[in-house]
């Protein structure tokens, strides 16, 4: 493998996106995400890519729509308030069956909130945010390495399903540095193949075809009967994604567990510290860490609730959002407790331990 480099999450995901074949990037700066756009501004010209600092977040997501409609790997990124502005565009991308990668480096909200790490955009990312019947594939990294690896995964999933994909990160993962290893750059031949896989539907120049506009990129369908079929088809696609693409990590799961923690992203990292410390004193706690938060690993959670498990503890950096999905998974079998921190404040391993031990 390649040599490890010490890098911020924001920079690592940008580098990984370029290596994955992203040659069009549009965004507007916002803390704690700005190193990402800065990195892209520096690197895109070196790979003959396109970097545009758009006049707004809304413009940026619509530029992604255009680039993606031409079959190219395109990406935008922002932090929570900026992601809210992109929601209309995300719904349009989903409606038009377009792949795209959107990175959200979450900060405290609502409104302008603050610039510290938070997970308050879970509902927005996984349950809608934009209007209409659509689903966004949402990936939640918990290390800088995973953040970088997800750029590649997000583009692949986007292309596979022609669906927008969000990487739901946060200020901690964006700002912190960890060693990271990158995959090699895609070759010219691979990049060409990436483009060509979309030629049966995207806008592209075609000399054999006198009417160059025979492919239509559109999310408007005024005839209800036609729209009905379109949305039913989208639904079938979402069913397929739920069947095939669920990803999660099991941590310290064993027959000895009497408490199960469920946490994602940064919260899961802190929970791991608490679980390790409890294991040292003989208390066995397991954790399910959803890696895709949509599609959600409901079964992974219900599968580990054997007779010894007394309760489930959900830790999130919000007022309680993913806990609703955990309750669906547990389905009333045992108590589901919640530990949250808001305002951009992180919990400490001690606070998680106290919650697990009912102290």
């Amino acid at each position, binding site marked *: 493998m390649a040599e*490890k480099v*010490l890098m911020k999450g924001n920079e690592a995901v940008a580098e990984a996106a370029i290596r994955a074949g992203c040659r069009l990037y549009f965004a507007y700066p916002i*803390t*704690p995400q700005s190193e990402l756009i800065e990195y892209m501004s520096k690197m895109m010209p070196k790979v003959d890519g396109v970097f545009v600092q758009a006049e707004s977040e809304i413009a940026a997501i619509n530029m992604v729509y255009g680039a993606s409609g031409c079959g190219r790997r395109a990406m935008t990124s922002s932090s929570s308030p900026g992601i809210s502005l992109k929601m209309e565009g995300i719904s349009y991308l989903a409606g038009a069956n377009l792949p795209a990668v959107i990175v959200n480096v979450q900060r405290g909200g609502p409104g302008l909130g*603050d*610039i*510290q790490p938070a997970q308050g955009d879970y509902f927005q990312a996984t349950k809608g945010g934009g209007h209409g019947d659509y689903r966004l594939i949402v990936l939640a990294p918990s290390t800088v390495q995973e953040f970088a690896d997800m750029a590649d995964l997000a583009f692949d999933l986007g292309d596979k399903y022609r669906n927008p994909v969000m990487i739901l990160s946060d*200020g*901690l993962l964006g*700002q*912190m*540095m*960890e*060693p990271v290893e990158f995959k090699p750059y895609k070759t010219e031949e691979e990049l060409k193949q990436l483009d060509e896989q979309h030629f049966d539907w995207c806008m592209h120049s075609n000399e054999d075809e006198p009417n160059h506009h025979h492919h239509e990129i559109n999310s408007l369908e005024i005839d209800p009967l036609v729209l009905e079929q379109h949305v039913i088809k989208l639904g079938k696609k979402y069913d397929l994604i739920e069947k095939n693409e669920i990803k999660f990590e099991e941590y310290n799961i064993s027959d000895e567990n009497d408490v199960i923690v469920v946490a994602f992203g940064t919260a899961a*990292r*802190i*929970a*791991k*510290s608490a679980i*390790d410390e409890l294991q040292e004193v003989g208390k066995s706690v397991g954790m399910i860490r959803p890696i895709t938060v949509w599609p959600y690993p409901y079964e992974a959670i219900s599968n580990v609730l054997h007779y010894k498990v007394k309760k489930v503890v959900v830790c999130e950096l919000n007022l309680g959002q993913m806990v609703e999905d955990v309750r669906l998974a547990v389905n009333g079998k045992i108590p589901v407790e919640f530990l949250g921190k808001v305002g951009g404040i*992180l919990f*400490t*391993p*001690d606070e998680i331990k106290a919650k697990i031990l009912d102290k």
Partner: protein
Amino acid sequence: MKTEIISSGFGGQGALTIGKFLAKAGMGEGLNVSWLPSYGPEMRGGTANVSAVISDKPIASPLVTYPDILIALNQPSIDKFGPDIKKNGLLIYNTDMCPHGIKREDITVIKAPMNQIAKEIGTMMVLNMVAIGIVIGKTGIVKYETLEKDLSGFLKKKNPELLEANLKAIKKGIEIGKE
């Protein structure tokens, strides 16, 4: 073995860079490392600080609440993080900027006039390297050679004089740390 470090000082003193070089050296020696800065608007006269973790096992939480080592380049850093240093932990501080020091008997304290040492070497820019040297001299969590290799990598051509000053500062720090 896991070592949790907080490095803290006024903006511009190089506190964040201390964490970065230690983490980079740890990575160079095959260890797991993380570097988590405080970011955002820090009050003037306050503390720019970083949590750095160096460990032979994967690092779970990168946020350091109770450091094994606190490197304090100014008094507000001691006031803020000093009480949280683990029992039998290590405090390294800059006497030139920390007039009050700390009142704790259950930790090891190494103090040095880092401003003065840096000035004698020739540039205030190497103040933080004195602190890194003390960490290495006292704990050996990373090797001097790893740092020298890393620094040489990007300074040798660009600014050989600054490289010399940096290495001198680290060596001086190591002497102090070993005493």
